[in-house]
């Protein structure tokens, strides 16, 4: 055992044991028991405390907390099809803390906006965060795009939505958004506008997971758009609104009824608008 090789062996065994211990204890039972997934999320102090206790390293904190939120949401997505209601609070709190730690940090606005609008319908909070982001980084035209979309799609405030789209067009120098803004003011073109904005968002997203999410949404909207056009054709041809989608199919305007990628079913309401039972969120 005094030999060099012997000592090396012992060192090696100890290192392996070290790894082994880490591996063995990496089990849910080792962690605090009786705590729900929802409570397992990091507890934040108020944003100001988080800021000054970060000294010079607020940027690292912002990154780390955002990562924490993503990991948390990722874990939840394994258990739930759609983000569960109790996850809303962690999202809002993380967003508040992170935007205080480093108001320039991009990802958090994107993540918070995505969840808050589509999954929780809390468009006001999402917009407040985006406005805050624009205060610090007015050159990020994509925030205007989000704001425009949020206003018109969720809040049905078309004028404001159009205003933000014009802003996005001006800051980005891309005329297509101004074009969408003008269409927005006509009720018939709104799905097309939504599709246009989503396409812009997809173009500006490099994260694969998020891209896929947006593409699913785009696919659903394209389904709606297709059906809306069909309804229009039906109305022109027969002078009345179709009662249901089957009528469109029977009239030979569409070949089949597109599938809602969220698992819902498309239908036509009394006013002739195409809707889906899923409301564009995953159904349980």
């Amino acid at each position: 055992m005094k030999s060099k090789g012997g000592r090396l062996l012992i060192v090696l065994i100890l290192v392996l044991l070290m790894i082994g211990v880490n591996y063995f204890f990496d089990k849910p039972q080792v962690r605090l028991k009786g705590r729900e997934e929802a409570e397992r999320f990091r507890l934040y102090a108020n944003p100001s405390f988080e800021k000054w206790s970060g000294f010079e390293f607020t940027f690292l904190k912002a990154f780390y907390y955002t990562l924490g939120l993503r990991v948390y949401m990722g874990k939840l997505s394994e258990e739930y099809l759609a983000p569960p209601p109790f996850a809303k609070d962690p999202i809002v709190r993380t967003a508040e803390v992170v935007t205080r730690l480093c108001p320039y940090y991009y990802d958090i606005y994107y993540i918070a906006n995505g969840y808050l609008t589509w999954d929780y319908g809390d468009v006001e909070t999402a917009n407040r965060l985006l406005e805050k982001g624009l205060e610090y980084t007015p050159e990020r035209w994509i925030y205007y795009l989000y704001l425009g979309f949020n206003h018109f799609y969720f809040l049905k405030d078309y004028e404001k939505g159009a205003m933000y789209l014009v802003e996005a067009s001006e800051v980005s120098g891309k005329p297509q958004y101004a074009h969408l803004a003008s269409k927005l003011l006509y009720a018939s073109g709104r799905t097309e506008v939504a599709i246009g904005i989503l396409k812009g968002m997809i173009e500006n997203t490099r994260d694969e997971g998020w891209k896929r999410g947006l593409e699913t949404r785009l696919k659903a909207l394209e389904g709606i758009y297709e059906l809306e056009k069909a309804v229009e054709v039906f109305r022109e041809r027969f002078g009345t609104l179709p009662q249901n989608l089957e009528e469109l199919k029977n009239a030979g305007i569409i070949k089949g009824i597109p599938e809602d990628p969220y698992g819902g079913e498309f239908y036509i309401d009394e006013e002739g608008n195409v809707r889906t039972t899923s409301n564009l969120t995953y159904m349980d």
Partner: protein
Amino acid sequence: MKRVIELARITVKQAIKERSFYVILIATLLAVLAVPVLYSFTMFEVPRVLAGFALSYTNFAVLILMLFLVMNLSQTDLDRKTLQYVISLPIRRRDYVFGRFLGFVFFACILIFFILAITVPFVALFSRMRPDAPFYIGYYFLYGVFLLIEVALLVAIALLFLSLTSRTIVSMFGVAGCYIVGHTMDEVAEFLRTGTGMNMPVFSKAVIQVVRYIFPNLALFDVKTAFIYGKGMDGMSLFLSLLYGVLYTVIVLLLAVVLFEKKEVY
């Protein structure tokens, strides 16, 4: 001046012989390994996130290493009575303070730009792969100057504590305390201006004001985020921050000299 330079030289030599460069080199290479990981964790503006990490790492590594170095060298100077010997050499007492200061700052300077130079190719390379934000290489190195001023100020504070007390543990807590207060007071003062802050008891407000004007405002040198995002920093405020740092450092250093002149070195 010759004697100051001589002492500065010996300080740098000592610092280099502590093998700090190897440690930093290895730590930096390990840190660079994290770049691809960060890259995949980032959704937007990769160049900025990477630059933010590199600058935070530089900041952290330099602070830790300098704290270790200054305290370690001061500790041997004091505990093993080397200081007695050194000030019996043909130098003025103030030469010792200035020499040590210059030596440490010069070493920190090499260290900072060494780390920045190692990290910059990696950040630049990965920024090229997803160039969705600009990478300001000028700002990247300009931050080094701000970090250097911060380190210089902290070294001066360490020397001040060395002149005040003969116990390194006291100086260590002193420097750490100044660092913490220095980085938080700006935020606290900000709080005082809010509604809740206004309603605070007069006494607390007075204490905060006094503390604020004694301790250095280190938050002024934390320009990392501003630099990576190319934000909120005009030439004038940059210049004033640096001027503030230099002036405060000089004053602390002079205070250290005045106290050190009459210090009994046991």
